[in-house]
């Protein structure tokens, strides 16, 4: 959000206020008060980018059991620990074979600048992974720079066309997004430039809304037929993913499998968005930690675990997160927010400009405004030109390599010659909440809350 009332210069810092005997309300803290004041002043709900900012049980609450005496570790850098993953070999004749299980999540041209999209393609291709379009269609820059490009099939169908569909390496049917399961998209007028408007068949400069439901199918019974159509159009060559926002992942995963998906993409509530109501981001959906075991359970019960691949996203930051997601049963992960940060989002060198926008480096989330000093979440030509797609692509490639090597380091320590041999039994939890959600024992015990009875 944007701070509308900046504290007066010389305002007392927090500890001084406490020394004065002033007490901040835990319920009505300053951010809450600012929200109420902003709502009262404008009459509009707060819209922002990024994902959930509240603290939720996360991968940080899990730890790996490295090998010691009863298990043997692999030697780093010498003994094989493979990281490749095949996505979509259930029905598609041309599945994706990626060199790292870390993929780039769907982010639209429109939400992002053309340079940012190009940089994502460059970075992903350099390390042999995939990138994904977003709402609004496929740009030539993106197709040209992406070795593996996943084409999203969204409710709005902005920019959807069969020529690009046939050019795609995979098709991702989007039902929802972790930041807003059940919600549609929006792109505010500042970012609907002539090019964006042209690609989406919209008037320039209007506030664009996207539908929350697909226009020509609803539910798994129709989806099965829709997937059949897309397979027919692409002659059964192209893998078909189904992306769901995490809310009832046990059922949604099972239904995606039953509908004929090759791959299920599961996005937790920490997953980012370009522009959504803050109330939606913070209060709808469940953390990815709680979602993965439910999805994996559904896949296992159908005998489809690792046959229909599971890509998870929403809060992946480090190789440890990658390894933990895979140990819980994911085949791959997707990163969005972290990828933007690697490109240069929230870079402290733009501190003065973030401050001028009423934000700060590390806090900036007004992606909807199109005034991103880093030139990423903008359509402004001057701002966009600040992002060098080659250099930014290189930064992303570096980051992707680090994530992969970090995950490998952990897998080797657990005695695995492939990342996908990590398993829940390699993990313990630090909190009762994380233990119950991730279904791994509380560290030092054999206790998994809820595991013995009904839940």
């Amino acid at each position, binding site marked *: 959000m944007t701070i509308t009332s900046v504290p007066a210069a010389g305002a007392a810092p927090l500890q001084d206020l406490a020394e004065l005997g002033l007490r901040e309300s835990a319920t009505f803290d300053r951010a809450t008060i600012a929200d109420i004041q902003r709502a009262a002043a404008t009459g509009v709900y707060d819209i922002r980018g990024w994902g959930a900012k509240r603290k939720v049980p996360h991968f940080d609450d899990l730890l790996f059991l490295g090998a010691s005496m009863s*298990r043997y570790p*692999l030697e780093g850098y010498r003994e094989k620990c493979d990281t490749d993953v095949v996505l979509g070999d259930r029905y598609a004749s041309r599945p994706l074979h990626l060199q790292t299980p870390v993929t780039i999540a769907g982010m639209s041209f429109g939400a992002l600048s053309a340079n940012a999209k190009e940089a994502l393609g460059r970075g992903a291709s350099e390390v042999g992974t995939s990138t994904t379009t977003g709402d609004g269609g496929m740009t030539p820059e993106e197709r040209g720079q992406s070795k593996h490009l996943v084409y999203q099939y969204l409710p709005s169908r902005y920019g959807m066309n069969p020529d690009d569909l046939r050019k795609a390496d995979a098709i991702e049917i989007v039902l929802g997004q972790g930041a807003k399961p059940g919600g549609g998209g929006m792109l505010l007028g500042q970012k609907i430039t002539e090019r964006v408007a042209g690609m989406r068949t919209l008037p320039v400069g209007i506030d664009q809304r996207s539908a929350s439901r697909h226009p020509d199918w609803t539910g798994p019974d129709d989806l099965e037929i829709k997937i059949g159509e897309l397979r027919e159009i692409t002659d059964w060559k192209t893998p078909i993913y189904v992306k769901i926002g995490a809310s009832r992942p046990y059922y949604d995963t099972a239904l995606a499998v039953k509908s004929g998906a090759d791959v299920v993409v599961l996005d937790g509530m920490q997953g980012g968005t370009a522009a959504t109501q803050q109330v939606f981001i913070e209060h709808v959906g469940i953390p990815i930690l709680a979602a993965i075991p439910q999805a994996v359970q559904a896949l*296992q019960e159908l005998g489809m*675990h690792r046959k229909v691949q599971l890509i998870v996203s929403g809060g992946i930051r480090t190789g440890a997160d990658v390894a933990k997601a895979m140990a819980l049963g994911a085949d791959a992960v997707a990163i969005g927010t972290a990828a933007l940060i690697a490109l240069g989002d929230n870079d402290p060198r733009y501190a003065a400009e973030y401050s001028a926008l009423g934000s700060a480096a590390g806090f900036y989330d007004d992606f909807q405004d199109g005034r991103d000093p880093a030139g990423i979440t903008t359509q402004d030509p001057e701002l966009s030109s600040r992002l060098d797609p080659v250099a930014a692509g290189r930064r992303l490639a570096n980051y992707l390599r680090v994530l992969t090597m970090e995950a490998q380091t952990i897998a080797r320590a657990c005695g695995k*010659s*492939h990342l996908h041999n990590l398993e829940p039994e390699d993990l313990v939890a630090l909190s009762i909440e994380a233990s119950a959600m991730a279904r791994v024992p509380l560290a030092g015990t054999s206790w998994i809350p809820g595991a013995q009875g009904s839940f």
Partner: protein
Amino acid sequence: MCGIAALQLRNPSLHPQMGSLLSSMLCQIVDRGPDSAGLAVYNTPGLVSQGTSTLSLLGADQGMTTAALTAGVAALLPSDAAAAVQVVGDTTLVGAAVGTDLLVKAVTETVPAATIIGRGEHVAVMKSVGHPMEIAAHHGLEAMAGSQGLSHTRMATESAVTAGGSHPFSVADDLCLVHNGSFSNHATVRRGLKREGVVFDSENDTEVGARYVASRLQQGDTLEEALVNLGKVLDGFYTLVVTTADSMAVVRDPIACKPAIIAETEDYVAMASEYRALAGLPGIDNARIFEPEPGKVYTWSL
């Protein structure tokens, strides 16, 4: 964490010495696994016989007299099945001239608590907790004849020190598997097999390997194919010896940390964790001695 000694006798004139040779090999690997031990012997007269299925039950005491056990099993089988029960050391052997499935049914109905540790027409399996040499002596290994023998001494890692958790794991007719090492993804493979309907007796990682091999063999794999597939599915460190009615196989994981050495002559193939276990075998000085290569499956058939 474990010691392995295995012997396949190609020359029938050596068959009477099977027990004494295996016993001498076992003696040298005791230190590698002093918690418990297990033995599998093939075609040993007095324990198994052609045309008869034999089940090996854990423990000498099945909660009833031998006569009562014999009568109970016989009552559930055709009259010409000639059910017979004998106790060998800590092991109860039940034989009858019927298929193993039928015999298993009769035994579990008579002794619901029985733990079946071996089955088939050719193999007898014996396991117990304690010092391996005492176990071997208690079962009279020294005097046993046979075509093949397999022994294992165990230092338990992540599962309990019990006789049931000892190797070999024998989960299909005449199939035995012993393991030195630890599988690092056995929980995942176990879940997959369970979903296919496979029932497990223990939490032991080796049982997962044995059940996996049995499942592959049932699907039509040769022993070699089953072990190649095992290498694709099970991760971690292992040296495995697998025996069937007429074959023996050895495989090590691709990193090959756990030891294995093989001696091969015209008269026998012997495999052990350490050379000292092979040192006393006849004609060892002229044997071809080699360490199995990483990730390569070796099989020998009688």
